[in-house]
């Protein structure tokens, strides 16, 4: 019995046989409502379960970024002792969409801050060594006029500079710190060199001001350096800046105390104790377990060996794969397998198993026969090979079913070839949501089907997708591969930029490096690109020693190990040799701190012992 056509808003003449014939003739386009709804819900379930982690601050494992951006940045201006517990670890927000608009200014920051260091050096020399000898008697009124004249002359540049520095904190904290320190040096020298020269400021007063300024900047630089924005353990890491400032402050204070009779010995000892405490704090925050420490490959192997959580098994599988390819894998998988077995038994039996974790668990050797049988889905493979256009099932969804079927030995050669062809054709580099995951799973499907050699057919698509998702940090210190290109902002040259690169892109970046290992580094990637990619991996792989390693740290560490095995990386290293100018750029914050400490010390030393004695009437 044919189903009758039902039309609620019939038009004139429509209730005829022709309408019913049309309805009968279009039966092939009619989908059963319940079946259709079930398929839609299944798709929704699969997408929701496998969607990438939301790139929000909430998803950060160390969930410390709950505060507004302004508060986070402003916190950098307060000494640590005034901050509530926990705020000391405040990091910087990432991926602002406005970055592309302010790009020209941001790109000038390193040059601007480096120029400021040179200017500080020149003006500082002139201030402490030029003109009249410090302490030489000078007309008091003229000296005060000197000081007032300095502010009259420089109030506008000073205001602009301070506003600029605060603004820069949002976009280039390293340069903001450099400018802040250099600016402080100039202001300090501009005011106190004049006062000291006039004999209006004694050594004690100069020392007091210099010490206070440097202690304040110690706190500021510590706040800025503790988050993993530009930290590092070498000289270019900002850990040395607060130490230099602390040391400078201590020296100035001690100079100020010289010649003071009968007091200060107990107070002086307690100050030195405080200095030692803060120095220890700086070192502990950067090198101790409460700070972020580099992740070694031994750490990764130990973490894998002790891993009993399979909730992020896809990331774990990628870590294992990248470590294995880099010939760095040596872990005991017993704990992981036991945890996986328990999960598989519970979830497969309870019908709650997410098949998109299956491929990773299979590759890690966690599947047993009954698990394979539970995941096998010949209908899905049949449907995929029969369908005309690859619009629904993605390689990621298909891989577990293929692996299970292959394990059970039931995929024909024709089906394998059909799947391989369709998986390759399904990678759409022009699609706005095309990403490294598409490539990653397509190549894995080809591998399990025994068509690894056909992966080269994806080379041009790979280059295009990697190009579309490549993001360079505004200050060009780091580069990474974003999860999707759709959310990126491109400059006029077609290059995506962001003011900070999020750690969430670590997974896409690790997959991209896996792809580069299989298909080659794209030709558009320069040695410098590989260098900034390495810098991103080095930063994001650091982990908090006190809380231990997690997959967000292990993934970039393993990816970096693989990157370092690529022939293109080895060739790039030769081009990445530091130049004098490059070293100067890298050390600009440290040099600014050294200049402030050095000029303050010189100015303090050259100031008269007691201002009131130096300025005698007449």
């Amino acid at each position, binding site marked *: 019995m044919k189903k009758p056509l039902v*039309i609620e808003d019939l*038009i004139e003449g429509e209730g005829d046989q022709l309408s019913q014939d049309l309805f009968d003739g*279009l039966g092939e386009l*009619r989908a059963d*409502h319940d079946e259709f709804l079930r398929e839609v819900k299944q*798709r929704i379930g699969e997408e929701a379960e496998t969607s990438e982690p939301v790139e929000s601050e909430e998803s950060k494992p160390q969930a410390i970024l709950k505060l507004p951006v302004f508060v986070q940045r402003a916190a950098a201006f307060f000494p640590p002792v005034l901050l509530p517990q926990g705020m000391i670890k405040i990091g910087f927000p990432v991926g602002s969409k406005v970055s592309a608009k302010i790009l020209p200014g941001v790109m000038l920051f390193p040059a601007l801050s480096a120029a400021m260091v040179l200017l500080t050096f020149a003006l500082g020399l002139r201030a402490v060594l030029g003109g009249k000898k410090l302490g030489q008697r000078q007309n008091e009124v003229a000296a005060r006029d000197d000081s007032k004249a300095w502010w009259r002359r420089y109030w506008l540049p000073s205001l602009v500079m301070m506003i600029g520095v605060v603004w820069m904190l949002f976009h280039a904290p390293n340069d903001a710190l450099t400018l802040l320190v250099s600016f402080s040096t100039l202001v300090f020298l501009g005011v106190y060199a004049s006062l000291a020269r006039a004999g209006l400021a004694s050594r004690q007063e100069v020392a007091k001001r210099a010490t206070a300024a440097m202690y304040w900047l110690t706190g500021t630089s510590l706040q800025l350096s503790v988050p993993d924005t530009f930290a590092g353990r070498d000289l270019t890491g900002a850990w040395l800046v607060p130490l230099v400032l602390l040391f400078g402050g201590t020296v100035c204070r001690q100079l100020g105390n010289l010649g003071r009779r009968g007091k200060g010995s107990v107070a002086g000892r307690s100050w030195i104790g405080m200095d030692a405490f803060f120095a220890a704090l700086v070192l502990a925050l950067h090198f101790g377990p409460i700070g972020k420490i580099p992740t070694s490959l031994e750490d990764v192997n130990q973490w894998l060996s002790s891993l009993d959580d399979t909730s992020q098994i896809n990331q774990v599988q990628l870590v294992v794969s990248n470590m294995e390819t880099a010939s760095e894998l040596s872990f005991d998988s017993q704990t992981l397998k036991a945890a996986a077995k328990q999960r598989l038994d519970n979830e497969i039996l309870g019908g709650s198993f997410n098949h998109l974790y299956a491929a990773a668990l299979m590759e890690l050797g966690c599947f047993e026969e009954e698990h394979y049988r539970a995941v096998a889905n010949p209908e899905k493979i049949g449907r995929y090979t029969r369908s005309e256009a690859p619009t*629904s099932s993605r390689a990621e969804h298909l891989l577990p079913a293929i692996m299970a079927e292959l394990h059970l030995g039931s995929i024909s050669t024709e089906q394998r070839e059909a799947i391989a062809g369709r998986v390759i054709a*399904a990678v759409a580099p*022009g699609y706005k949501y095309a990403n490294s995951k598409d490539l990653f799973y397509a190549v894995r499907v080809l591998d399990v089907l025994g068509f690894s050699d056909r992966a080269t057919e994806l080379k041009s698509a790979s280059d295009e997708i990697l190009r579309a998702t490549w993001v360079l940090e505004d200050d060009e210190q780091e580069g990474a591969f974003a999860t999707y290109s759709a959310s990126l902002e491109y400059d006029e040259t077609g290059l995506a930029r962001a003011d900070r690169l999020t750690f969430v892109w670590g997974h896409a970046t690790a997959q991209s490096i896996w792809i580069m290992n299989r298909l080659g580094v794209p030709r558009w990637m320069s040695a410098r690109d590989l260098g900034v990619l390495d810098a991103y991996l080095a930063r994001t792989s650091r982990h908090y020693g006190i809380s231990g390693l997690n997959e967000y740290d292990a993934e970039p560490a393993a990816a970096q190990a693989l990157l370092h095995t690529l022939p293109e990386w080895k060739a790039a290293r030769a081009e990445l040799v530091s130049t004098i100018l490059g070293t100067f750029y890298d050390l600009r914050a440290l040099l600014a701190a050294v200049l402030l400490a050095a000029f303050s010390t010189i100015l303090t030393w050259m100031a008269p012992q007691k201002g009131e004695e130096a300025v005698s009437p007449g």
Partner: protein
Amino acid sequence: MTIVSDMDLESLISSHKGPLIALISTWGASPRDAVELAQDTFSEAYLSRDRYKGDWDDLKALGAWLLGIANNLFHAGQRASSGSGRLISMPEVSVADRPEATEAQEREERVRGVQQALLQLKATERTVLLMRYTEGSSLAVIGSLLGLGERAVEGRLRRARAALKEQLEKNMLLEERS
């Protein structure tokens, strides 16, 4: 699966499934692919429902939004597949000369005749007929997907029906002559 109250997925599928599948099929997808693409469209619509800024009761806005998603998915699929799109797959028609045909056979022949005539119509005419008669969808829903008002859809439907009848008569004449 919890469906949020703002978007009634089930009723959306119920009202838009037929015309959307029909519309996709006119873009060159096979019936099976059109169904799958429509399923993708509804799932994508549900997953990205937060991005929909219109009123859920505004049929026109809803239709345009669904159409946009379907369009994107279709073009993504087109880019992925090496081949170009093709016309809706209607079976080849060969009306046999069988005087003793039963009523069921007669109906089947009539339906085949309609299928063949559909393929000979202009694309706009074929589209509106497919969207209307795949599931008997309302003029309002069809209009929402085509970006037309109900009166415009009605006018287009009348013209398409007239063109189809004319085509059927032409085909019958040709058949008789042959």
